[in-house]
């Protein structure tokens, strides 16, 4: 229960397991999250992201393993953990019948803050909610609700914030403003643990990414480390004839080139950087391949898992 300071881990997780009846959701996951960093737990639907967040935020008890937040065990000292954290759940954790101001004031009062009013006004301003401060939340768009939800999580100066899929269901504009907000929080030293289904979101936001698949963390590392292992984009070359297809497969065999079934087109892995893509295009020209056009595709999480699992088999 020692107090930890400085650069140590704000979250320590060891061999955590959790089953619902016979369904094994977490099969032993371990990781550390550095204080003041953004950690993204990436996984597709049903991977167990919410289950992990619920255990870390004291809503659920794990079957085995341990988890510590700021040095406090989540099972043994839930109240100490609770005074360090706040949770923005996957489904909105705001009171829909209250107004923005009432929601913030309610949480501030429950935290027994001495200066609720100024803090609420400050948050309303920072989160661009001042104009809608006295409207019931039920009339809000998804993006505004999310903003309020995150603002509510900031009251009481938590040192660790959990965000469960903070941008799912948001339009591109609100997604970007939510991203900016999250970056800002981390810049003032708050540790952020978020979950997401989007590789690009994890890449953009996180200092460290862990991918949860089939109950295990299949890969963990910094964005740079992850990028070395998984393709960030596929470049699709739209080709006209079998000869060109064959040539392309040969030239790009080191980039895992594959024919897209039923067409002459070829799919090539790339890290998505301009030098890498221009290298691909140059090689096409040099080898006199008649490509009509090319397009970039983001890999799906499933294809990333496949790639990782295949790599492990090799």
């Amino acid at each position, binding site marked *: 229960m020692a107090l930890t300071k400085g650069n140590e881990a704000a979250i320590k997780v060891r061999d955590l397991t959790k089953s619902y009846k016979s369904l094994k959701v977490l099969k032993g996951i371990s990781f550390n999250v550095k204080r003041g960093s953004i950690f993204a737990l990436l996984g597709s639907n049903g991977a167990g992201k919410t289950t992990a967040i619920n255990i870390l935020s004291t809503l659920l008890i794990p079957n085995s393993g341990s988890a510590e937040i700021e040095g406090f065990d989540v099972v043994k000292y839930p109240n100490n953990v609770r005074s360090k954290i706040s949770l923005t759940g996957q489904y909105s954790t705001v009171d829909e019948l209250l107004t923005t101001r009432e929601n913030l004031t309610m949480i501030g009062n*429950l935290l027994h803050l001495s200066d609720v009013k100024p803090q609420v006004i400050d948050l309303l301003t920072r989160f661009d909610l001042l104009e809608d401060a006295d409207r019931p939340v039920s009339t809000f768009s998804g993006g505004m609700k999310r903003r309020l939800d995150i603002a509510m999580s900031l009251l009481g100066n938590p040192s660790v914030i959990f965000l469960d899929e903070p941008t799912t269901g948001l339009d591109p504009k609100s997604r970007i403003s939510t991203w900016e907000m999250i970056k800002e929080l981390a810049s003032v030293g708050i540790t952020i643990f978020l979950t997401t289904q989007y590789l690009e979101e994890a890449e953009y936001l996180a200092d460290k990414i862990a991918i949860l698949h089939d109950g295990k963390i299949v890969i963990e590392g910094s964005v740079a480390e992850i990028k070395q292992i998984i393709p960030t984009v596929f470049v699709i070359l739209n080709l006209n004839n079998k000869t060109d297809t064959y040539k392309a497969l040969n030239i790009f065999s080191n980039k895992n080139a594959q024919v897209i079934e039923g067409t002459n087109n070829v799919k090539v892995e790339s890290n998505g950087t301009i030098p890498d893509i221009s290298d691909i295009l140059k090689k096409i020209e040099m080898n006199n391949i008649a490509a009509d056009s090319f397009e970039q595709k983001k890999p799906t999480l499933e294809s990333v898992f496949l790639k990782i699992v295949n790599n492990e088999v090799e």
Partner: protein
Amino acid sequence: MNIIKKFKYYASDINVMVKRNILHAVRNLESLLTTIMLPPFIMLIFVYIFGGVIDVGTANYIDYLFSGIIIISVAFSASIVAVGVNKDVTTGIIDRFRTMNISKSAIFFGHVFASLIRNVISILIIALLAFLIGFDTSATFLDWLLITGMILLFIFSFTWMFVMVSLLAKSPESASGFSMIVVFTSYISSAFVPTDTMPAALRIIAENQPFTHINDTLRALFLGNQVGNSAILAIIWWVVIFIVSFIVTQIIINSRNLR
């Protein structure tokens, strides 16, 4: 010192939650008005439509009916609590509260005290109307104190029972469905008619259930009759119901396994 501070925090948390529920009630004006207006209507219907044919042994049917209407009124208003509590626990807001270092029972005290306020208002309306249509009572000042205490106890623990049930219900629909069952159970009592006119099986239920005990107590006090055993039975029933409901509620909300 520490205990005093804890108590202060607890009181302040309950206060926050009561305010929250009052705001909910005000923003749900329709359902508030229906639960408040329904019992007076029922009272008028019984007095003017059935009253002529129901023979209860008092000069005025309203004198007999009044205590029953209070019981029904409380039973009706429980549906607001049922839906409110169930909404809290089936939406995300409960997760935010549960991850905060606060006493979780404050959330439910909020619902219960807001329900107390609602019920007192609607009982005052019923009483006013009853006096207008000829309700006559021989209750003394002391009787009135007892009546008030019994009614408050009844509302308080009845609402806690609903909090418990709504926590267990899977959806707001099933929570409010249960409240209908309880409303009907309250009919199988001495609320509207004397139990000795009922068939034997029903009569045994009607004579031994907590609605009848509280109703008999209130009626005896209003009519100036001997209260007898019913008061003590009513107190035991409703105190036990409160204790069980409170404990079960605490267990459910603090459990980290029941999800």
